[in-house]
């Protein structure tokens, strides 16, 4: 019992609050910023899949705005656009004002819809950067990196911002440790924007980590979790992208990356931070590496995260999974 109370000789030098897969949820991003006050980290880290996946068309008709939100028809005066847009954003969707002709055209033109999505995602990135500048204490670093679901159109917005750091495919210095970030994942059935083969991923990881000086402690901020670790369990899908049912329930299979797993085994970073698979919230050890996937429940406005403390010598002192 006395040992349990023994004071650690190591002192905390760095605290990171890590979250991922907020998918356009304004509520989650605001909570992400609020985490700076609650958990008092030195670094706020959003590790990919920041872009939303739904767009609610708001129909302009005779001074009124009409939209379907979660199956309910909503009609408000045009003057209440800000309120309606905020309500839609809160649910993780983008809101776009359209007249009947524009809406009809959009339904027939997937390319136009794709452009609209990209512009909305970039606009949200700008709003979020402004919000971070407004709300965060200057001493707190705010790092955002992309995931496979994030279109490259948002990259220049974050990269150009003065308050937010965007070290995608780079190693950045966090003080006692260096952090390597990579949003690319192995091929998925949806052919999203940042995908490649396992071989290509392994090559990119090597290029990234081989640049680290010898003996430098590192953190991997790789969106894709390591294969077969319990941090990568997702429903198995058939050729039509429907969940495979076995024994009356969805079949669950590991869908993580072999390349990421091999890299963790080889380079043994102190911590590896992942997302991508919302259902597989958890913590796992590979050798001496603490692998974390905080999971995601963004559609309910719940921010799942992890607080990680790093000592002066770059070792991991402690971690805590959070739900807020």
């Amino acid at each position: 019992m006395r040992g349990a109370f023994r004071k650690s000789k190591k002192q905390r030098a760095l605290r990171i609050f890590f979250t991922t897969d907020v998918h356009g949820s304004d509520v989650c991003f605001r909570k992400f910023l609020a985490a700076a006050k609650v958990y008092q980290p030195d670094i706020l880290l959003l590790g990919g899949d920041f872009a939303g996946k739904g767009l609610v068309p708001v129909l302009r008709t005779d001074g009124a705005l009409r939209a379907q939100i979660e199956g309910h028809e909503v009609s408000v005066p045009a003057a209440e656009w800000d309120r309606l847009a905020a309500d839609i954003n809160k649910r993780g969707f983008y809101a776009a004002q359209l007249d009947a002709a524009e809406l009809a055209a959009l339904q027939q033109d997937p390319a136009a819809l794709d452009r609209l999505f990209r512009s909305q995602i970039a606009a949200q990135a700008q709003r979020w950067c402004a919000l971070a500048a407004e709300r965060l204490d200057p001493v707190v670093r705010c790092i955002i990196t992309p995931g496979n679901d994030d279109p490259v159109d948002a990259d220049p917005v974050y990269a150009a911002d003065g308050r937010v750091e965007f070290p995608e495919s780079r190693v950045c210095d966090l003080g006692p440790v260096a952090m390597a970030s990579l949003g690319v994942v192995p091929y998925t059935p949806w052919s999203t924007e940042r995908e490649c083969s396992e071989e290509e991923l392994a090559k990119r990881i090597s290029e990234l980590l081989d640049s680290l000086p010898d003996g430098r402690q590192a953190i991997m901020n790789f969106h894709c979790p390591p294969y077969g670790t319990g941090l990568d369990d997702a429903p198995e899908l058939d050729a039509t992208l429907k969940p495979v049912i076995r024994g009356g329930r969805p079949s669950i299979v590991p869908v993580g990356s072999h390349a990421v797993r091999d890299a963790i085994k080889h380079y043994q970073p102190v911590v590896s931070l992942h997302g991508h698979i919302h259902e597989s919230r958890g913590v796992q050890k590979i050798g001496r590496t603490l692998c974390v996937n905080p999971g995601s429940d963004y559609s309910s406005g719940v921010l799942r995260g992890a607080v990680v403390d790093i000592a002066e010598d770059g070792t991991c002192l402690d971690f805590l999974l959070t739900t807020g």
Partner: protein
Amino acid sequence: MASSDAAAGTATAGGGEAGRLFIRQTSGLVRELGIPAATGISLASVAVVNTFINFNAGLTDFAKADMYLPLVAAAVIWLVAMFAYRYLLRAVPRAGGEYVYLSRIVSPVAGSMAGLGIAVVFTYVLSTNAHFAAQFTPFMLSGLGAAFHSTAIANAGNHLTSNIAIAWLSIIVMLVVAALSLFSVKIVARIIFGLIILQVVAFLALIGMLAFNSHADFVTALASYSHHPGAYQAIIAGGKSNGVVFGTSIAAAVAIIPFMVLNYNGVLYSYYVGGELRRPGRTYLYASAISIGVLVVLWIGVWALLRARAGLTFMQAQANLGVINPTAYGKITSLSSVSGGLGYGMVLSSDPITKILFATAVPLAEIAVNLAFLTVTTRVLFAQAFDRLLPVRVAKVGDRNHAPNVAIAIVLVIGCGFCFLTSLVNLGSIVALQSLFFALILLAGGVAALMLPLRRADLIDLSGISESERSRFLRKVTVVGAATTILALFTVFELVTHSSVYGKFSVESIITLLIVLGSGPVIYLIARAIRRQRNSLDLAMAMHELPPE
């Protein structure tokens, strides 16, 4: 990453008609319980069919009891509480119930008090439910024996009345529950739902039997069942001569309200699995409202039928004579005095199907209740483990079934221990304040809802509405929280002032209650002190709720 709702759309246009959502990309989620599953958990936690037995217990415990007013008043109390929990679930939409609400809104110490207390008491309830099912085995076998015309089956029940036999039967019930709980939560919810359907069928069969038979039919059937031509009148006469008080009074009806509040206990329990509910606020509200509505209609209807067919005087005499003078009662009839309405159904039943339904209703109901309670209890442990208050291993989810297997194993092992103790040792004086604990849990929910707008208004996300609308909404939450607190305090007051019925205040029972309530804060404070001493992360951090603004 896209997974479970992948089929909903692709990276391009998924929308079609005017105003519909356009879908760009998809992602999987853990929330899989809809309104039917949540309703199943709520109804199963109540054990619909137990009401027949609970009516009987109410008649035994309260002189001059009538159930109309208590049934309606208790439903109103739960209806008010339903809205309080809705606001809590909306602000903190995840599993864990009062543990999560109190720890996030009031203080981690208060949360840990509720969390560990709920885990311990609910585990004990699991064992008492198993024990109850075991005690009903002779009734079940006698019913099955009658259905299959087998004296061997009917007589087998006579060999299963010893304490050790009851203990082993309780363990078997627990093991059945354990085996079923190893399925994923969605399948468990389906099993619970199936068992509820069986209960409802039994319930409806009994309603039909009471509705389509007259009072005279019941008197004749009882005489035939008891092989005693004047059994009905003899039981009433026996009651009179043994001092049973007949009739009704308002005072008794008010005193019995807490009993009925406890009878409905569980009707809101879908909030305990809030982390697994689809669109939690809406799903919870519909499930709870449906459950309360179903129970009020069914129970009032059945009580009216029981009064019309068996008669209040007879029910009061039968329930009490079996307790006051079991020998005299046994000479009149072999009908179990504690079986209540189910026993009346057995008396009226003339076909094997309804006999089987009535015979198996209680054990099946208890299995459903235990599955629901196990789900609830393990989610509370799960939430505490994720907050590092318990070892992280407790929160480990199985690869195959995606259920918290370690938490399930812990609850079952302790539950089996309680089964043996309940059967072999008299725990009555120790757990006498169990009713008070449940009322305190309701009080905790009311206090959390009351404190929500006062302490953590920032958790209520009302983006896009005006300041005056926001103030109005916060006032509404305060009023609902205050109303729930007052109604819970009334229940606590009635429980305390009627301790002869609800549980006596002895040194053992008070110490037990204090240990149950105090162990959570003690564990929390020790764990926090150890971690702080070791320069580890402060446990309180895990219990912070992030404001959306």
